[in-house]
């Protein structure tokens, strides 16, 4: 069976699908770029050293739209973590796996269930569209996983996740405060690493500009460059850096840090650098790569899930022809949301 999947869920989503067949609402999204202004200061780069042996846990989520029926969709979300002490993988629990049936009609209900289970209480707004709902649910589950990891972490463990340390969904601020607070208390460094960032400088992508300047200022070193960002307002829960984790790395990343009192950024970044020397992922903390691969849905997994769903639907009496007509453009959604 597929990693983390509970077989009963296949039946549940098919039941939901059968229960309601409704019209779709328009989908919208607001990526929203944040411009930092100013110029990159060559004196702003700080070199740092790689830490010695240390523990790290990485959290990530993956999702895939399995079936798109227009007015509804069935998506899969999987969230997990990977822990390393020194450079050895530690046994871990199964990832969390959800099959979601999202339809325009009960979008609010579905979302508020997940919101309640993760942040707590009622959501202040609801997603605009099915895809956004799936994305938000994944984000909520990811934060929940970060919260659990921080709760169980040994002091001194650096906990990293894929993304930025900001409240990108309305109403989750309290949850992030909670997480940041508990990490600080437990002496756990919390760090978000973004592969892509919405930061710009005079409407140009910021990270490449910083990278060019940094490689000029500190060649053959690992460095970080603190950013002053005002655009997030209340939503930002850490300090933002651009960091290069390995002297030979060809990539730099945005790193959002929330650190225990008295821990300088170089200490946390040094720990990430310790884990960023796998020869295949030079400059990227390997535990993040591992957890990403663990939770991402491969094409064959998506196909397997689809066929599981189909057999279950037919077993429950759905006409194969109806199935085909409902999802006939499914080739378009292959790999969507990965």
């Amino acid at each position: 069976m597929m990693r983390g999947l509970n077989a009963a869920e296949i039946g549940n989503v098919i039941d939901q699908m059968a229960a309601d067949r409704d019209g779709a609402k328009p989908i919208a999204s607001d990526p929203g770029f944040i411009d930092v202004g100013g110029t990159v200061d060559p004196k702003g780069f700080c070199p740092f050293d790689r830490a010695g042996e240390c523990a790290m846990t990485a959290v990530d989520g993956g999702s895939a739209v399995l079936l798109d029926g227009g007015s509804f969709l069935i998506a899969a979300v999987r969230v997990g973590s990977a822990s390393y002490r020194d450079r050895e993988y530690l046994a871990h629990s199964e990832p969390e796996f959800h099959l979601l049936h999202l339809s325009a009609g009960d979008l609010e209900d579905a979302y508020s269930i997940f919101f309640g289970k993760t942040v707590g209480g009622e959501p202040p707004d609801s997603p605009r569209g099915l895809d956004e709902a799936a994305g938000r649910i994944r984000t909520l589950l990811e934060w929940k996983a970060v919260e659990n990891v921080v709760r169980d972490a040994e002091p001194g463990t650096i906990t990293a996740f894929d993304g930025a340390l900001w409240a990108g969904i309305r109403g989750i601020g309290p949850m992030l405060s909670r997480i940041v607070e508990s990490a600080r208390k437990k002496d756990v460094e919390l760090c978000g690493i973004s592969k892509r960032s919405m930061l710009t400088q005079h409407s140009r992508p910021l990270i490449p500009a910083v990278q060019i300047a940094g490689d000029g200022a500190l060649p053959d070193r690992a460095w970080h460059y603190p950013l002053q960002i005002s655009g997030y307002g209340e939503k930002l829960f850490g300090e933002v850096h651009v960091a290069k984790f390995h002297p030979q790395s060809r990539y730099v990343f945005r790193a959002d840090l929330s650190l225990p009192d008295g821990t300088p950024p170089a200490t946390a970044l040094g720990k990430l650098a310790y884990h960023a020397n796998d020869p295949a992922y030079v400059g990227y903390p390997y535990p993040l790569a591992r957890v990403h691969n663990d939770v991402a849905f491969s094409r064959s997994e998506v196909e397997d899930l689809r066929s599981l769903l189909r057999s279950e639907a037919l077993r429950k009496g759905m006409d194969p022809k109806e199935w085909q007509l409902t999802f006939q453009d499914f080739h378009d959604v292959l790999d969507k949301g990965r």
Partner: protein
Amino acid sequence: MAKDEIGTDVSLGRITGRDVTEIVFRAYRNRDIFLGEMLIGECAEGRRRFILRVINIMHGSEASEAGWAPKTAGAFMDGDAREEEYHVYDADRRLYNHVVCAPLGYLLGEGDDAEFRSPKTIPTHFSRVRRASDRDYRFLERYLGDVKLGSLRSGEHVIPSVPVGIDSGVICQHMGVFATTGMGKSNLMKRMAGAIMESGKAGLLILDPHGEYIDGGKDGLKGLVHHPKAGTNLDIFVTREVAANASDIRISTSEIKVQDMQNLWQFSDPQVELLNAVWSRERDGWLDYLMDNDTQTIFQAFNEQFHEGSIGVVGRRAAVLASSPFVTRDGRISITKTIVEKLHQGKVVLVDLSGASEREELLISSVLARAVFQENSRLFRDKAAFKSIPPCLIALEEAQRVFERAQGGIFPQIAREGRKFKTGLCAISQQPKLIDTEVISQFNTLVILGLADRQDRERLAGSARQDISRLDYEIQTLMTGEGLVTGPNTPFALPLKVDLYETYLAGMAGKPERKRKSADKGFF
């Protein structure tokens, strides 16, 4: 599954696919697997045990991206240049070995009842692969041969509990022992002679051009005289002074045939005609006749049919033979009869030819081989007498010298006809490529040790009883004393490690029931 130790149930990986001629499995990257090893692919529910021989090993990784490995190696190299350390995370998951195997066959059932089948099907998906254990090898017992040469080998590992040898029942179907120089041919022959001395089930005539079999020839090496059974089961004939109880070699002119002379020199057509004419008239006295008469007399005697030049050449060559200290006109002192008798008693007869010239050596070898063959074919007509003689095996070093052509000479004749008359050949050579293909195809048992030359290997691959073409690389990489046996009764090319003769002797000396006879054996 039990842990480690070579030859026990260690799980090595799982089969990933391919076909009936080739099986590939994914192996843990940190488990040692060697070329030539024999492994077991265990089908689900234990239905069949496939015996797999490793023929190639390659690196594999889970990375889906093409060129991942060179890129990663590049990162390592970059790190080396800057004294940067890199660490492959999850290496056991991401890296593995692809092991390519030739399926040798499969076993149905367990224990002594296990039945061997040739590989006409494939193992189940993802079958577990493990090292073979004694339990898996048990079926081999019925194929291993009673003339023990060594132990079963799996890659580099020797499996002492499974002895391997050749079958005395098929030694008359001829055998070949092939190896590049120094890879252990002579040691193997000594080991085989030892086994035959122990059993007395066959007569073995060893023609030793280098004088290395009597006492080993070199410091630290042992010879046949050191064998505990040498006192009763070994007889030695020599062409030089030796410090052992031995008889001098004498063959008589009447035992030499025109054919033998043709093997020693090139003759023109008229010269051959002359030889045949003399033979027709004088029969066994042909050589004496050539020696006793001068050119003119012969010229006249054959009505001036032959050119005097031809007569001169033939006469001079006859004189060379006749002047050899090992050739006598007196048929009564020839040792050929004695040698044949000893062989019929199931003894090992060692003929040390190191004191003879190469011509003399070939001549004596031919005469002795013919004597055995002729006597055995004569006895063939007398059923009871024939039944009472053991199979006789004639071992010949540098055999390529007499087998370049499939016709002409006593050795090719024995290769063709000997088997019916309990006369087998054991051809030893470091250059099988020089041996005629038709001759090689007469050798039903092949013992192949390390062969560096591709043409040599190809020549054998074409003639072996079992397909050894897949083993080409293994044969090339065999170490001294390691080899493969193919024969009419082997289920597949059996890998073996030949016992070092000296070790074998030491082991025998340790045996409590040994009878030491060598004390009264001359100087030894």
